[in-house]
């Protein structure tokens, strides 16, 4: 993402907010709507599957979703492209100031929007105030095998690097922060910087069309930064001033 700081009259902290650290580019021309990212994200981040009834009411929990849009009535339906939607890791996130318990905060070191599960009391104000509607709420204890014995076997494939969440807690995409930390720790042990493309998020890794690219948006030579300079680049709801870190490449 390139931001002309002269245009923004931005200096200091605001410039940092606008710049960001980790970023993502999603090419909507390449996305086929296959939902591999959705599945990979759920596996990586221990996202619970909700039961049939809750899913039917629209409570399926996903940190990334593939939005699809169409025009007209059946059978004269014209599909437009797919739009994967996930937490945009806003530089100025509307969810952050409204939480009365400081459960959703901005990370100084990672420049990410964090959700502190054990601090969340479940007012759901953040989810109301999120213009991208990308937060998911644990309406029940979906991951407690005492309550749902049938998930015991699923619990065997939990990612040990990620916690599980209880009822009444909000959660959302973390940009796979456990992978970021893993790569950083490894690089530090080997006495070097994290290289571009060394690791990526679960959704980007799973995407068969390579529509999702993840990396250091503040390094101009990184792949994600180069893609973000594309003339097709746009940010969702940019007019709200949320400074999103996810860049979409619109269909050409």
């Amino acid at each position, binding site marked *: 993402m390139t931001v002309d700081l002269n245009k923004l009259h931005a200096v200091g902290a605001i410039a940092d907010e606008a710049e960001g650290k980790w970023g993502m580019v999603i090419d909507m021309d390449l996305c086929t709507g296959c939902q591999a990212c959705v599945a990979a994200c759920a596996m990586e981040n221990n996202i619970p599957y909700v039961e049939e009834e809750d899913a039917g009411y629209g409570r399926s929990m996903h940190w990334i979703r593939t939005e699809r849009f169409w025009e007209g009535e059946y059978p004269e339906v014209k599909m437009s492209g797919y739009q994967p939607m996930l937490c945009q890791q806003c530089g100025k996130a509307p969810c952050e100031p409204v939480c*009365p318990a400081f459960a959703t905060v901005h990370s100084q070191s990672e420049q990410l929007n964090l959700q502190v599960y054990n601090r969340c009391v479940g007012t759901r104000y953040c989810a*109301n105030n999120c213009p991208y*509607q990308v937060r998911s*709420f644990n309406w029940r204890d979906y991951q407690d095998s005492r309550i749902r014995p049938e998930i015991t076997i699923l619990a065997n494939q939990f990612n040990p690097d990620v916690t599980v969440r209880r009822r009444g807690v909000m959660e959302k995409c973390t940009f796979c922060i456990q992978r970021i930390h893993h790569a950083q720790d490894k690089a530090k042990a080997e006495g070097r910087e994290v290289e571009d493309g060394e690791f990526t998020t679960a959704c980007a890794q799973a995407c068969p069309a390579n529509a999702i690219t993840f990396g250091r948006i503040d390094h101009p030579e990184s792949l994600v930064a180069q893609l973000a300079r594309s003339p097709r680049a746009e940010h969702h709801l940019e007019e709200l001033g949320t400074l999103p870190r996810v860049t979409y490449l619109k269909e050409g």
Partner: protein
Amino acid sequence: MADHKHPTSHEEHLREQHLMLDPMPRGKMNEMVMESMHTTSWKFWLVFGLLAAFVAYALFYKWGVMILEGLGVAGVNRPSYWGIFLVNTVFWIGISHAGTFISAILRVFRAEFRRPFTRAAELMTTFGLVQAGFSIFMHMGRVWLSYWLMPIPNQRQLWPNFHSPLSWDLLAITTYLLSSTMYLFLPLIPDLAMARDRTPDGTWQKTFYRILALGFRGTEGEWTHLRNALNIFAFAIIPVMFSVHTIVSWDFAMATRPGWSSTIFGPYFVIGALHSGMGAVVMVLAVVRGTMKNMKYFIRPEHFEAIGKLMLIISMGWAYFFFNDYIVQWYGGDKWTKELLHWHEAGPMGWMWFAMLICNVAIPWAILWNKKWRSTPWLLFIVGLLINVGMWFERYIIVPISLTINRMPFTWRLYQPGIEVWLGIGTVAFFILLYMAASKLIPLIPVWEVQEGQMAHSLKKYGRETVVTVSELE
């Protein structure tokens, strides 16, 4: 009925019309109020028992189920993360406002008709706030951690986020609950002392009144202190009331959402609160007058007439703010707001939008302009009920229906209430239950205020003409 032309009949007519001109010996009046507290028919206990059973089931049992199972048993969902819980919170805080408004504003302006019903209105404030508290805590995902929102020193070294309107809300409502309870208690002291002196020794009621009356004996010094305190409180509580409901509106107005981020929400919510609260006061008065002994003496058609006028003015004020909120947003031309306003009127819940306008504007305007109609208690009860239904609809439109429309059309989905319907009706039952219990424990009529008013008013004859005179006591 009295012949208006005959002088003595005119005097009788005036006495019949106005409580202030119809004095009664103090001992007799005290007896009447005590009698109204002590006369309890089996019907009272039947209703009381049924309500208590209902509260135990619908409010406490169902809430327990929800705490154990999670909010999934309710209908709240993306994108309507806030549902009937928040509707009820705003609704109950609204109800509670009229208590203070009637009592404090009318006290400040020395409106004489306020005297017999200030207490009934103030009680509404306290009990309404209790229900508002229930509603907001029910809505939390992890209510057992709600003390984390309190600014108290703790081992977690955490402080609440004072940037969040919810934190302001908590402080505002707590302030309001404490100040309105004190404001209820102050004018109650002389009446508690009156009840103490008329309760036989050895009963638990005697102990109850003795403790609460704080040893009030009715000396000149005590009355002076009471008047000074009441005067300060009556003025001070008015800005508190305005700020509290403005802060409640900021929970919505501060959010980045179409339809919510409106600068007029503060006064719009205040007038809406007064609208529903006045409706509730008139309902309470009609029930008290109809069911409790001796109340027809204290609460007369003149009181309904006076409140009816206020209701009409507030209804007009509400319509003005509603129109302001609507028209500015509509002309703003934002595509999401436009979509939202269309959804309000033409969406699947459009009937509610029209019902709101009928209940809040059309019906009050059609009925309250007529003096005879607005002096009829049962008719005002119905108008008050409809206004409350309309105001509940207004909050329902602002919270879950407006939440349906956001900037991500993929997530649009209609909210379907679940267990929160039980919990909501449970708060209504609990409010009535608390009120019924209070009517047996504390004098609902501020006897000393009525007596003070009656002492100040007198009928004088100038030639053949009977003239009402009022003297300043304070």
